[in-house]
Protein backbone atom coordinates (compact mmCIF):
# COMPACT_ATOMS: atom_id res chain seq x y z
CA UNK A 1 0.00 0.00 0.00
CA UNK A 2 1.40 3.39 -0.92
CA UNK A 3 0.92 6.72 0.76
CA UNK A 4 -1.58 8.94 -0.93
CA UNK A 5 -3.36 12.19 -0.26
CA UNK A 6 -6.52 10.55 1.09
CA UNK A 7 -5.01 8.81 4.07
CA UNK A 8 -4.33 11.69 6.44
CA UNK A 9 -7.41 11.24 8.57
CA UNK A 10 -10.09 8.74 9.21
CA UNK A 11 -12.92 10.86 7.90
CA UNK A 12 -11.69 11.31 4.35
CA UNK A 13 -12.84 8.99 1.62
CA UNK A 14 -10.63 8.11 -1.32
CA UNK A 15 -12.13 8.54 -4.77
CA UNK A 16 -12.67 4.78 -4.86
CA UNK A 17 -14.67 4.89 -1.63
CA UNK A 18 -12.01 3.59 0.75
CA UNK A 19 -11.11 4.84 4.20
CA UNK A 20 -7.36 4.35 4.22
CA UNK A 21 -6.83 4.98 7.91
CA UNK A 22 -9.23 2.15 8.69
CA UNK A 23 -7.38 -0.11 6.27
CA UNK A 24 -4.05 0.82 7.85
CA UNK A 25 -5.54 -0.09 11.22
CA UNK A 26 -6.27 -3.54 9.80
CA UNK A 27 -2.59 -3.78 8.91
CA UNK A 28 -1.71 -3.28 12.56
CA UNK A 29 -3.62 -6.46 13.37
CA UNK A 30 -1.58 -8.41 10.84
CA UNK A 31 1.57 -7.40 12.68
CA UNK A 32 0.43 -9.07 15.87
CA UNK A 33 0.82 -12.79 16.49
CA UNK A 34 -2.07 -15.10 15.70
CA UNK A 35 -5.25 -15.78 17.62
CA UNK A 36 -7.68 -18.52 16.55
CA UNK A 37 -11.25 -19.23 17.63
CA UNK A 38 -13.85 -21.90 16.92
CA UNK A 39 -17.28 -23.01 18.02
CA UNK A 40 -19.12 -26.30 18.45
CA UNK A 41 -22.73 -26.89 19.42
CA UNK A 42 -21.71 -26.82 23.06
CA UNK A 43 -18.53 -24.77 23.51
CA UNK A 44 -16.54 -21.84 22.20
CA UNK A 45 -12.72 -22.06 22.22
CA UNK A 46 -10.03 -19.43 21.60
CA UNK A 47 -6.28 -19.99 21.49
CA UNK A 48 -3.46 -17.53 20.96
CA UNK A 49 0.26 -17.38 20.38
CA UNK A 50 2.00 -15.05 22.80
CA UNK A 51 5.15 -13.07 21.98
CA UNK A 52 7.83 -11.60 24.17
CA UNK A 53 9.85 -8.56 23.21
CA UNK A 54 13.06 -9.93 24.68
CA UNK A 55 14.21 -13.29 25.93
CA UNK A 56 14.04 -12.24 29.55
CA UNK A 57 10.72 -10.45 29.19
CA UNK A 58 7.21 -11.62 29.93
CA UNK A 59 4.91 -12.76 27.17
CA UNK A 60 2.14 -10.39 26.14
CA UNK A 61 -1.25 -11.53 27.44
CA UNK A 62 -3.48 -12.37 24.48
CA UNK A 63 -6.67 -13.76 26.03
CA UNK A 64 -8.73 -11.71 28.48
CA UNK A 65 -11.69 -12.89 30.55
CA UNK A 66 -14.58 -10.42 30.38
CA UNK A 67 -17.22 -12.22 32.44
CA UNK A 68 -18.09 -15.72 33.61
CA UNK A 69 -19.57 -16.50 30.22
CA UNK A 70 -17.29 -14.58 27.86
CA UNK A 71 -13.70 -13.83 26.94
CA UNK A 72 -11.67 -12.32 24.11
CA UNK A 73 -8.50 -13.08 22.18
CA UNK A 74 -6.63 -10.16 20.66
CA UNK A 75 -4.21 -9.43 17.82
CA UNK A 76 -2.67 -6.00 17.27
CA UNK A 77 -2.14 -3.07 19.61
CA UNK A 78 -2.49 -4.57 23.08
CA UNK A 79 -3.17 -1.25 24.85
CA UNK A 80 -6.17 -0.68 22.58
CA UNK A 81 -7.38 -4.16 23.49
CA UNK A 82 -7.05 -3.33 27.17
CA UNK A 83 -9.22 -0.24 26.79
CA UNK A 84 -11.83 -2.19 24.86
CA UNK A 85 -11.78 -5.07 27.33
CA UNK A 86 -12.35 -2.67 30.23
CA UNK A 87 -15.29 -1.21 28.38
CA UNK A 88 -16.65 -4.69 27.73
CA UNK A 89 -16.33 -5.56 31.41
CA UNK A 90 -18.34 -2.47 32.28
CA UNK A 91 -21.03 -3.39 29.79
CA UNK A 92 -21.16 -6.96 31.08
CA UNK A 93 -21.38 -5.80 34.68
CA UNK A 94 -24.08 -3.29 33.75
CA UNK A 95 -26.22 -6.01 32.22
CA UNK A 96 -25.96 -8.09 35.37
CA UNK A 97 -26.70 -5.14 37.60
CA UNK A 98 -29.63 -3.64 35.74
CA UNK A 99 -31.24 -6.73 34.28
CA UNK A 100 -29.79 -9.56 36.36
CA UNK A 101 -28.69 -11.39 33.23
CA UNK A 102 -25.37 -12.22 31.56
CA UNK A 103 -25.00 -9.97 28.56
CA UNK A 104 -25.90 -11.68 25.25
CA UNK A 105 -22.75 -12.07 23.15
CA UNK A 106 -24.26 -10.42 20.07
CA UNK A 107 -25.12 -7.35 22.14
CA UNK A 108 -21.70 -6.83 23.64
CA UNK A 109 -20.18 -7.40 20.21
CA UNK A 110 -22.46 -4.69 18.79
CA UNK A 111 -21.45 -2.38 21.64
CA UNK A 112 -17.75 -2.52 20.79
CA UNK A 113 -18.54 -2.45 17.08
CA UNK A 114 -20.43 0.80 17.55
CA UNK A 115 -17.63 2.17 19.72
CA UNK A 116 -15.07 1.39 17.05
CA UNK A 117 -17.20 2.85 14.28
CA UNK A 118 -17.30 6.21 16.06
CA UNK A 119 -13.54 6.45 15.70
CA UNK A 120 -13.89 6.11 11.94
CA UNK A 121 -16.27 9.03 11.63
CA UNK A 122 -15.05 11.71 14.01
CA UNK A 123 -12.29 14.08 13.11
CA UNK A 124 -9.16 13.81 15.19
CA UNK A 125 -9.71 10.24 16.32
CA UNK A 126 -7.84 7.19 15.17
CA UNK A 127 -9.40 3.76 14.69
CA UNK A 128 -8.56 1.09 17.27
CA UNK A 129 -5.53 -0.89 16.16
CA UNK A 130 -6.64 -4.28 17.45
CA UNK A 131 -8.80 -7.12 16.24
CA UNK A 132 -10.69 -9.26 18.77
CA UNK A 133 -12.18 -12.73 18.72
CA UNK A 134 -15.09 -12.58 21.18
CA UNK A 135 -16.00 -16.04 22.45
CA UNK A 136 -18.91 -16.59 24.78
CA UNK A 137 -21.94 -18.61 25.78
CA UNK A 138 -25.43 -17.21 26.26
CA UNK A 139 -29.05 -18.34 26.10
CA UNK A 140 -28.83 -18.98 22.37
CA UNK A 141 -25.73 -21.16 22.73
CA UNK A 142 -22.00 -20.68 22.13
CA UNK A 143 -20.87 -17.82 19.88
CA UNK A 144 -17.72 -16.54 18.26
CA UNK A 145 -17.58 -12.99 16.91
CA UNK A 146 -14.73 -11.31 15.07
CA UNK A 147 -14.34 -7.62 15.85
CA UNK A 148 -12.38 -5.33 13.50
CA UNK A 149 -11.37 -1.65 13.82
CA UNK A 150 -13.77 -0.75 11.05
CA UNK A 151 -16.60 -1.53 13.45
CA UNK A 152 -17.52 -4.68 11.54
CA UNK A 153 -18.59 -7.46 13.83
CA UNK A 154 -19.43 -10.81 12.26
CA UNK A 155 -20.23 -14.19 13.73
CA UNK A 156 -18.09 -17.19 12.71
CA UNK A 157 -17.87 -20.95 13.14
CA UNK A 158 -14.10 -20.54 13.04
CA UNK A 159 -11.86 -17.48 12.69
CA UNK A 160 -8.21 -16.48 12.85
CA UNK A 161 -6.50 -13.09 13.02
CA UNK A 162 -2.90 -11.90 13.20
CA UNK A 163 0.37 -12.86 11.50
CA UNK A 164 0.15 -15.83 9.14
CA UNK A 165 -3.46 -16.36 10.17
CA UNK A 166 -4.35 -17.41 6.63
CA UNK A 167 -2.70 -20.77 7.34
CA UNK A 168 -4.96 -21.21 10.35
CA UNK A 169 -7.96 -20.22 8.31
CA UNK A 170 -7.05 -22.83 5.73
CA UNK A 171 -6.94 -25.51 8.43
CA UNK A 172 -10.30 -24.35 9.77
CA UNK A 173 -11.89 -24.35 6.33
CA UNK A 174 -10.67 -27.88 5.68
CA UNK A 175 -11.94 -29.24 9.00
CA UNK A 176 -14.92 -27.15 10.03
CA UNK A 177 -17.44 -29.91 9.41
CA UNK A 178 -16.00 -31.75 12.40
CA UNK A 179 -16.40 -28.83 14.78
CA UNK A 180 -20.14 -28.80 15.44
CA UNK A 181 -20.28 -32.18 17.18
CA UNK A 182 -16.76 -32.18 18.55
CA UNK A 183 -16.13 -32.70 22.24
CA UNK A 184 -14.43 -29.89 24.14
CA UNK A 185 -11.16 -31.80 24.03
CA UNK A 186 -11.29 -32.30 20.27
CA UNK A 187 -12.27 -28.70 19.74
CA UNK A 188 -9.26 -27.45 21.70
CA UNK A 189 -6.98 -29.77 19.73
CA UNK A 190 -8.39 -28.47 16.44
CA UNK A 191 -7.74 -24.92 17.63
CA UNK A 192 -4.18 -25.77 18.59
CA UNK A 193 -3.52 -27.41 15.25
CA UNK A 194 -4.82 -24.32 13.47
CA UNK A 195 -2.61 -22.18 15.69
CA UNK A 196 0.39 -24.38 15.00
CA UNK A 197 0.00 -23.68 11.31
CA UNK A 198 0.64 -19.99 11.97
CA UNK A 199 4.07 -20.62 13.51
CA UNK A 200 7.05 -19.16 11.77
CA UNK A 201 9.80 -21.52 10.61
CA UNK A 202 11.61 -23.38 13.40
CA UNK A 203 9.25 -22.07 16.09
CA UNK A 204 7.17 -24.22 18.42
CA UNK A 205 4.07 -24.08 20.55
CA UNK A 206 5.35 -23.96 24.12
CA UNK A 207 3.72 -23.69 27.51
CA UNK A 208 5.04 -20.13 27.79
CA UNK A 209 3.79 -18.90 24.44
CA UNK A 210 0.39 -20.58 24.12
CA UNK A 211 -2.88 -19.49 25.72
CA UNK A 212 -6.14 -21.41 25.71
CA UNK A 213 -9.58 -20.07 26.65
CA UNK A 214 -12.93 -21.86 26.53
CA UNK A 215 -16.51 -21.57 27.72
CA UNK A 216 -19.65 -23.73 27.61
CA UNK A 217 -23.07 -24.30 29.15
CA UNK A 218 -21.84 -25.57 32.50
CA UNK A 219 -18.29 -24.34 32.04
CA UNK A 220 -17.44 -20.83 33.10
CA UNK A 221 -14.90 -19.03 30.95
CA UNK A 222 -11.60 -20.70 31.79
CA UNK A 223 -8.14 -19.45 30.85
CA UNK A 224 -5.13 -21.75 30.62
CA UNK A 225 -1.58 -20.41 30.60
CA UNK A 226 1.86 -21.86 31.33
CA UNK A 227 1.56 -25.11 33.35
CA UNK A 228 -2.11 -25.64 32.51
CA UNK A 229 -1.25 -25.58 28.83
CA UNK A 230 1.41 -28.28 29.11
CA UNK A 231 -0.98 -31.24 29.15
CA UNK A 232 -2.74 -29.92 26.04
CA UNK A 233 0.52 -29.61 24.14
CA UNK A 234 1.32 -33.18 25.13
CA UNK A 235 -2.07 -34.29 23.80
CA UNK A 236 -1.37 -32.36 20.63
CA UNK A 237 1.91 -34.19 20.14
CA UNK A 238 3.74 -32.36 17.38
CA UNK A 239 4.18 -28.75 18.50
CA UNK A 240 6.57 -27.59 15.81
CA UNK A 241 6.04 -25.36 12.81
CA UNK A 242 5.49 -27.12 9.47
CA UNK A 243 7.07 -24.27 7.52
CA UNK A 244 10.38 -24.99 5.82
CA UNK A 245 10.04 -28.72 6.28
CA UNK A 246 10.31 -30.84 3.12
CA UNK A 247 6.79 -31.68 2.01
CA UNK A 248 5.84 -35.39 1.84
CA UNK A 249 6.38 -36.86 -1.68
CA UNK A 250 3.34 -36.59 -3.93
CA UNK A 251 2.13 -40.12 -4.85
CA UNK A 252 3.26 -40.87 -8.44
CA UNK A 253 0.43 -40.73 -10.97
CA UNK A 254 0.26 -43.53 -13.60
CA UNK A 255 3.19 -42.61 -15.78
CA UNK A 256 2.52 -41.91 -19.44
CA UNK A 257 5.00 -40.95 -22.14
CA UNK A 258 3.86 -37.37 -22.12
CA UNK A 259 2.97 -36.50 -18.54
CA UNK A 260 5.88 -35.25 -16.46
CA UNK A 261 6.17 -36.85 -13.02
CA UNK A 262 5.51 -34.23 -10.37
CA UNK A 263 7.83 -34.82 -7.46
CA UNK A 264 9.22 -31.41 -6.72
CA UNK A 265 7.31 -29.66 -3.92
CA UNK A 266 5.77 -26.30 -4.81
CA UNK A 267 8.03 -23.42 -3.74
CA UNK A 268 7.34 -21.97 -0.25
CA UNK A 269 5.55 -18.63 -0.55
CA UNK A 270 5.98 -17.57 3.03
CA UNK A 271 9.71 -17.96 3.64
CA UNK A 272 10.58 -14.27 3.86
CA UNK A 273 9.25 -13.34 7.30
CA UNK A 274 8.23 -9.75 8.00
CA UNK A 275 10.04 -8.09 10.87
CA UNK A 276 8.39 -9.38 14.03
CA UNK A 277 6.92 -6.55 16.06
CA UNK A 278 5.39 -6.57 19.51
CA UNK A 279 1.66 -7.00 19.73
Amino acid at each position, binding site marked *: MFRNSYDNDSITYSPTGRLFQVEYALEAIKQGSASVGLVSKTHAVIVALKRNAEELGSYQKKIIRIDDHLGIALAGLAPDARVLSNFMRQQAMSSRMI*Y*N*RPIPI*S*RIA*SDIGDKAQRNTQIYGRRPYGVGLLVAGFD*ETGPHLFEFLPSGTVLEYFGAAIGARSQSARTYLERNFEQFADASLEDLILHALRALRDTLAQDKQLLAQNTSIGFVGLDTKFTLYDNDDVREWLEKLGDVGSTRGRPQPEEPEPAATEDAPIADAPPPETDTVEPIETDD
Partner: protein
Amino acid sequence: MDHNPANWGRPRADVYGPYNAAIHNAGPMARTQQPSITGTSVIAIKYNNGVMLAADNLASYGSLARFTDQERLIKVGEETVVGLSGDVSDMQYIQNLLERLIIEDNYEQDGHHLRAPHIYEYLSRVMYNRRSKIDPLWNAILVAGKKDDGSPFLAYVDLLGVTYSAPTIATGFGAYLAIPLLRKLAANDGDEKNITQEQARAAIDECMKVLFYRDARSLDKYSVATVKTDGQVTIEKDVRCKDMSWRFAEGIRGYGNQQL
Protein backbone atom coordinates in the same frame (compact mmCIF):
# COMPACT_ATOMS: atom_id res chain seq x y z
CA MET B 1 -22.11 52.05 58.83
CA ASP B 2 -23.42 48.77 60.17
CA HIS B 3 -21.00 47.31 62.70
CA ASN B 4 -23.03 44.13 63.26
CA PRO B 5 -21.21 41.30 61.40
CA ALA B 6 -24.48 39.38 61.17
CA ASN B 7 -25.74 41.92 58.64
CA TRP B 8 -22.61 42.11 56.50
CA GLY B 9 -23.21 40.85 52.97
CA ARG B 10 -27.00 41.09 53.39
CA PRO B 11 -29.39 43.62 51.87
CA ARG B 12 -30.37 46.39 54.31
CA ALA B 13 -33.40 45.46 56.37
CA ASP B 14 -34.75 49.04 56.34
CA VAL B 15 -34.73 49.04 52.53
CA TYR B 16 -35.63 45.48 51.59
CA GLY B 17 -37.54 44.29 54.62
CA PRO B 18 -36.53 41.78 57.28
CA TYR B 19 -34.26 38.91 56.31
CA ASN B 20 -36.18 35.68 55.63
CA ALA B 21 -34.56 33.18 58.00
CA ALA B 22 -36.20 30.31 56.16
CA ILE B 23 -33.44 30.63 53.57
CA HIS B 24 -30.83 30.01 56.22
CA ASN B 25 -32.71 27.23 57.98
CA ALA B 26 -33.92 25.30 54.95
CA GLY B 27 -33.22 21.56 54.78
CA PRO B 28 -32.01 19.60 51.74
CA MET B 29 -33.80 19.94 48.43
CA ALA B 30 -36.58 17.37 48.58
CA ARG B 31 -39.34 16.56 46.15
CA THR B 32 -41.19 14.02 48.26
CA GLN B 33 -44.67 14.05 46.99
CA GLN B 34 -48.06 13.13 48.06
CA PRO B 35 -49.74 10.79 45.63
CA SER B 36 -52.78 12.39 44.02
CA ILE B 37 -54.76 9.82 42.05
CA THR B 38 -54.18 6.39 43.49
CA GLY B 39 -54.87 2.72 42.91
CA THR B 40 -55.38 0.37 45.83
CA SER B 41 -54.25 -3.22 46.44
CA VAL B 42 -52.71 -5.60 43.95
CA ILE B 43 -52.75 -9.23 45.08
CA ALA B 44 -50.96 -12.27 43.66
CA ILE B 45 -50.42 -15.96 44.33
CA LYS B 46 -48.19 -18.58 42.72
CA TYR B 47 -49.77 -21.87 41.73
CA ASN B 48 -48.52 -25.09 40.14
CA ASN B 49 -48.33 -23.79 36.55
CA GLY B 50 -47.85 -20.09 37.01
CA VAL B 51 -48.90 -16.96 38.87
CA MET B 52 -52.28 -15.27 39.21
CA LEU B 53 -52.71 -11.55 39.95
CA ALA B 54 -55.71 -9.32 40.54
CA ALA B 55 -56.23 -5.57 40.88
CA ASP B 56 -59.45 -3.56 40.85
CA ASN B 57 -60.28 -0.91 38.26
CA LEU B 58 -60.55 2.05 40.59
CA ALA B 59 -58.42 5.23 40.47
CA SER B 60 -59.34 7.23 43.59
CA TYR B 61 -58.90 10.95 44.10
CA GLY B 62 -58.63 10.86 47.86
CA SER B 63 -62.01 9.63 49.03
CA LEU B 64 -63.63 10.27 45.64
CA ALA B 65 -63.98 7.17 43.46
CA ARG B 66 -62.84 9.14 40.44
CA PHE B 67 -62.19 6.67 37.59
CA THR B 68 -63.66 3.19 37.46
CA ASP B 69 -61.97 1.99 34.27
CA GLN B 70 -58.31 2.12 35.32
CA GLU B 71 -56.41 -1.00 34.24
CA ARG B 72 -53.59 -1.68 36.71
CA LEU B 73 -52.30 -5.01 35.41
CA ILE B 74 -50.10 -4.67 32.34
CA LYS B 75 -48.48 -7.20 30.07
CA VAL B 76 -44.80 -6.44 29.48
CA GLY B 77 -43.04 -8.24 26.64
CA GLU B 78 -44.35 -11.71 25.89
CA GLU B 79 -44.39 -13.50 29.20
CA THR B 80 -44.56 -11.01 32.05
CA VAL B 81 -47.32 -9.16 33.90
CA VAL B 82 -46.68 -6.13 36.12
CA GLY B 83 -49.32 -5.02 38.64
CA LEU B 84 -49.09 -1.50 40.07
CA SER B 85 -50.70 0.26 43.00
CA GLY B 86 -50.20 3.81 44.23
CA ASP B 87 -49.99 7.04 42.29
CA VAL B 88 -51.57 6.70 38.85
CA SER B 89 -49.45 9.27 37.04
CA ASP B 90 -46.29 7.50 38.28
CA MET B 91 -47.92 4.23 37.23
CA GLN B 92 -48.37 5.59 33.71
CA TYR B 93 -44.77 6.82 33.66
CA ILE B 94 -43.54 3.36 34.64
CA GLN B 95 -45.73 1.84 31.96
CA ASN B 96 -44.06 4.14 29.43
CA LEU B 97 -40.59 3.20 30.71
CA LEU B 98 -41.38 -0.49 30.37
CA GLU B 99 -42.81 -0.03 26.90
CA ARG B 100 -39.64 1.73 25.77
CA LEU B 101 -37.53 -0.94 27.41
CA ILE B 102 -39.26 -3.64 25.39
CA ILE B 103 -39.04 -1.66 22.16
CA GLU B 104 -35.29 -1.21 22.59
CA ASP B 105 -34.92 -4.85 23.53
CA ASN B 106 -36.42 -5.75 20.18
CA TYR B 107 -34.06 -3.62 18.09
CA GLU B 108 -31.46 -6.33 17.68
CA GLN B 109 -33.83 -9.17 16.70
CA ASP B 110 -31.23 -11.55 18.03
CA GLY B 111 -33.49 -14.00 19.79
CA HIS B 112 -32.85 -12.54 23.22
CA HIS B 113 -35.83 -11.20 25.17
CA LEU B 114 -36.25 -9.60 28.55
CA ARG B 115 -38.23 -11.79 30.92
CA ALA B 116 -39.77 -11.27 34.35
CA PRO B 117 -36.56 -11.54 36.43
CA HIS B 118 -34.85 -9.00 34.14
CA ILE B 119 -37.77 -6.57 34.11
CA TYR B 120 -37.96 -6.90 37.88
CA GLU B 121 -34.27 -6.13 38.36
CA TYR B 122 -34.59 -3.10 36.09
CA LEU B 123 -37.64 -1.78 37.93
CA SER B 124 -35.96 -2.34 41.30
CA ARG B 125 -32.99 -0.25 40.17
CA VAL B 126 -35.28 2.52 38.95
CA MET B 127 -37.32 2.58 42.16
CA TYR B 128 -34.32 2.55 44.44
CA ASN B 129 -32.56 5.23 42.46
CA ARG B 130 -35.57 7.51 42.64
CA ARG B 131 -35.87 7.01 46.39
CA SER B 132 -32.18 7.82 46.73
CA LYS B 133 -32.84 11.16 45.06
CA ILE B 134 -35.68 11.79 47.51
CA ASP B 135 -38.00 11.88 44.50
CA PRO B 136 -39.81 8.56 44.60
CA LEU B 137 -42.22 7.00 42.17
CA TRP B 138 -45.07 6.56 44.63
CA ASN B 139 -45.98 2.98 43.81
CA ALA B 140 -45.87 -0.58 45.05
CA ILE B 141 -45.32 -3.00 42.20
CA LEU B 142 -45.66 -6.74 41.67
CA VAL B 143 -43.83 -8.46 38.81
CA ALA B 144 -44.97 -11.94 37.77
CA GLY B 145 -43.63 -14.39 35.21
CA LYS B 146 -41.31 -17.32 35.14
CA LYS B 147 -37.76 -17.88 36.24
CA ASP B 148 -34.93 -19.20 34.09
CA ASP B 149 -35.49 -22.67 35.54
CA GLY B 150 -39.13 -22.63 34.42
CA SER B 151 -40.71 -22.21 37.85
CA PRO B 152 -43.13 -19.35 38.62
CA PHE B 153 -41.61 -15.95 39.46
CA LEU B 154 -43.33 -13.39 41.71
CA ALA B 155 -41.64 -10.40 43.34
CA TYR B 156 -42.39 -7.02 44.91
CA VAL B 157 -40.71 -3.61 44.76
CA ASP B 158 -41.98 -0.29 46.11
CA LEU B 159 -41.35 3.42 46.45
CA LEU B 160 -38.64 2.81 49.05
CA GLY B 161 -36.80 0.37 46.85
CA VAL B 162 -37.70 -2.51 49.17
CA THR B 163 -37.66 -5.82 47.32
CA TYR B 164 -38.81 -9.26 48.25
CA SER B 165 -40.23 -12.43 46.78
CA ALA B 166 -42.72 -14.95 48.19
CA PRO B 167 -45.42 -17.37 46.97
CA THR B 168 -48.10 -14.84 47.97
CA ILE B 169 -47.72 -11.07 47.86
CA ALA B 170 -50.13 -8.14 48.09
CA THR B 171 -49.80 -4.37 48.25
CA GLY B 172 -51.80 -1.82 50.23
CA PHE B 173 -54.76 -3.15 52.18
CA GLY B 174 -54.24 -6.50 50.54
CA ALA B 175 -51.13 -6.97 52.67
CA TYR B 176 -53.33 -7.01 55.78
CA LEU B 177 -56.51 -8.61 54.52
CA ALA B 178 -55.62 -10.76 51.51
CA ILE B 179 -52.27 -12.29 52.46
CA PRO B 180 -53.62 -14.29 55.42
CA LEU B 181 -56.32 -15.73 53.14
CA LEU B 182 -53.84 -16.50 50.35
CA ARG B 183 -51.42 -18.05 52.82
CA LYS B 184 -54.03 -20.61 53.76
CA LEU B 185 -53.19 -22.09 50.36
CA ALA B 186 -49.49 -21.30 50.02
CA ALA B 187 -47.74 -20.60 53.29
CA ASN B 188 -44.18 -21.49 52.35
CA ASP B 189 -41.88 -21.55 49.36
CA GLY B 190 -42.67 -24.66 47.36
CA ASP B 191 -46.33 -24.94 48.46
CA GLU B 192 -47.39 -23.54 45.10
CA LYS B 193 -46.72 -26.92 43.51
CA ASN B 194 -49.86 -28.25 45.15
CA ILE B 195 -52.23 -25.48 44.12
CA THR B 196 -54.35 -25.79 41.00
CA GLN B 197 -55.38 -22.85 38.85
CA GLU B 198 -59.01 -23.22 40.01
CA GLN B 199 -57.99 -23.12 43.66
CA ALA B 200 -55.85 -20.03 43.04
CA ARG B 201 -58.71 -18.32 41.24
CA ALA B 202 -61.15 -19.12 44.01
CA ALA B 203 -58.77 -17.66 46.60
CA ILE B 204 -58.22 -14.53 44.51
CA ASP B 205 -61.96 -13.96 44.03
CA GLU B 206 -62.55 -14.43 47.75
CA CYS B 207 -59.82 -11.91 48.58
CA MET B 208 -61.18 -9.30 46.17
CA LYS B 209 -64.59 -9.69 47.78
CA VAL B 210 -63.15 -9.21 51.26
CA LEU B 211 -61.22 -6.19 50.04
CA PHE B 212 -64.37 -4.65 48.59
CA TYR B 213 -66.12 -5.19 51.93
CA ARG B 214 -63.37 -3.70 54.04
CA ASP B 215 -61.14 -1.40 51.93
CA ALA B 216 -62.96 1.92 51.71
CA ARG B 217 -61.04 2.86 48.53
CA SER B 218 -61.83 -0.26 46.51
CA LEU B 219 -64.19 -1.30 43.74
CA ASP B 220 -66.05 -4.52 43.01
CA LYS B 221 -64.92 -4.58 39.38
CA TYR B 222 -61.46 -5.97 38.80
CA SER B 223 -59.07 -7.68 36.37
CA VAL B 224 -57.42 -11.07 36.84
CA ALA B 225 -54.13 -11.90 35.10
CA THR B 226 -52.84 -15.44 34.69
CA VAL B 227 -49.19 -15.87 33.74
CA LYS B 228 -48.38 -19.48 32.95
CA THR B 229 -44.96 -21.09 32.98
CA ASP B 230 -45.61 -22.28 29.43
CA GLY B 231 -45.52 -18.62 28.37
CA GLN B 232 -49.24 -17.91 28.00
CA VAL B 233 -50.50 -14.66 29.47
CA THR B 234 -54.21 -13.86 29.82
CA ILE B 235 -55.78 -10.81 31.40
CA GLU B 236 -59.48 -11.24 32.13
CA LYS B 237 -61.23 -7.91 32.47
CA ASP B 238 -64.47 -6.69 34.08
CA VAL B 239 -64.67 -9.43 36.67
CA ARG B 240 -67.26 -8.67 39.35
CA CYS B 241 -67.42 -9.64 42.99
CA LYS B 242 -70.20 -12.18 43.34
CA ASP B 243 -72.42 -13.48 46.15
CA MET B 244 -71.75 -10.61 48.49
CA SER B 245 -73.93 -10.05 51.53
CA TRP B 246 -74.64 -6.48 52.51
CA ARG B 247 -77.54 -7.40 54.78
CA PHE B 248 -75.61 -6.16 57.81
CA ALA B 249 -76.13 -2.64 56.44
CA GLU B 250 -79.86 -2.77 57.16
CA GLY B 251 -79.29 -2.52 60.90
CA ILE B 252 -76.73 0.29 60.85
CA ARG B 253 -77.77 3.66 62.26
CA GLY B 254 -75.40 6.64 62.12
CA TYR B 255 -71.62 6.40 62.10
CA GLY B 256 -69.55 4.63 64.75
CA ASN B 257 -70.57 5.82 68.20
CA GLN B 258 -73.03 8.40 66.92
CA GLN B 259 -76.47 7.86 68.40
CA LEU B 260 -79.38 8.51 66.09
